């Protein structure tokens, strides 16, 4: 038994421990993260509807100001309409699909 292999084994064990610990961590906190991210997504979906309101046929009294918020939602538009169950872009002029 050389010192080298002992050190190697120790390192091996600590790596496995670390993996196990991370796994446990994920097992316990994962669901919370999912919940938090889902909440965030719901909030962002709401924001999307507010900003795109006028274009989606909901009269928006503040359309003049909402227009300035478009860049915030533009990038997520495609994944949003897919997620809410509209397969093709609901807005004619936004050809994201």
């Amino acid at each position, binding site marked *: 038994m050389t010192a080298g292999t002992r050190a190697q084994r120790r390192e091996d064990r600590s790596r496995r421990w670390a993996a196990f610990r991370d796994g446990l961590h994920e097992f316990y*906190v994962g669901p*919370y*993260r999912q919940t*938090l*991210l889902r*909440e*965030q997504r719901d*909030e*962002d979906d*709401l*924001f999307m509807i*507010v900003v795109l309101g*006028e*274009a989606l046929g909901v*009269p*928006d*009294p*503040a*359309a*003049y*100001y*909402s*227009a*300035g*918020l*478009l*860049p*915030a939602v*533009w*990038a997520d538009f495609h994944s949003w309409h897919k997620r809410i169950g509209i397969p093709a872009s609901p*807005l004619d*002029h*936004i*050809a*994201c699909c």
Partner: protein
Amino acid sequence: MLLALACSRRLLFVGGKGGVGKTSISAALAVARARAGGRVLLVSTDPAHNLGHVWDRSLSDEPARVLTSGEGFVDAVEIDPTSTIDRHFATVAATMTRLLPDRLHASALQHLDQARTAPGSHEAAVLERIAELIESSRDTHDLVIFDTAPSGHTLRLLALPEQLTGWTETLLASRDRSDRFAAAARSVVGSKDAEPTADAELRRTLISRRDRFAQMRGSITDPDATSFIVVSIAERLPVAESIDVVRQLAGLGIDPAAIVVNRRSPADAGALLAQRREQEEQHLATLRSAVGDIPISQIPLLPGDLAGSEALSVLADHLVATSTA
């Protein structure tokens, strides 16, 4: 009374039913204040501008000097919502093209074009320009007089700052919640993605908007800074509308400080006019009993067309001399 009001306020809104002489009264009040050494900015918010007709010259969206009187002067502006809308959307388009990838530019700009023509954009632009003029005239003028559109239009416009403050607050709260969820999710697994720049920029936009609306709301509902002058004539419909305006102003928290009854018929110029004057007294009594202790100033029916600074000067004399009843 009216001159004292003009000397002690920073903003005056002049409103009332269409065709009662709001523009002449606003302009004459501006003249009276300028003669007393005030630097006055006179702004027409009515899309159907006639401030230019009253001054007998063409006016634009940029202030133009229409009268100088010793230390005092009057600068006049006719708000052009279209140019404000163009400026606003040019700014938004610039932001969008900076923040979005090239392939999205065309559709983003197309979408903006739709928003440009959305109902309400016109009104929002007028309000935006009013806010701009209030801010930019803070150091250069002592008084800003707004000659406004007929009542309904104006009251809606004055209700906007409050509504829009609420609207921006709601959106900011939504962004806050979204960020907090994202941050909480990140803290659960250690840091993942940094905050995107687009969002930070929009938040800045929202916050400055909110502050602007809130500030405007604060200044128009401060009775020491802002008053509303209701112009009417002594006839049934204008009187009914004036009473209505006074009530609605109370609801908006805006101070109706004075009522001007314009074009009173003379008692000594023939039977017809004397008879009309009798009739007017009744309507005036109705008005008096409905508006409590708001002072009512009366301006006699004047001959000739009210145009040019000479005629406005005569009307200004009447405004200054008028006794309240």
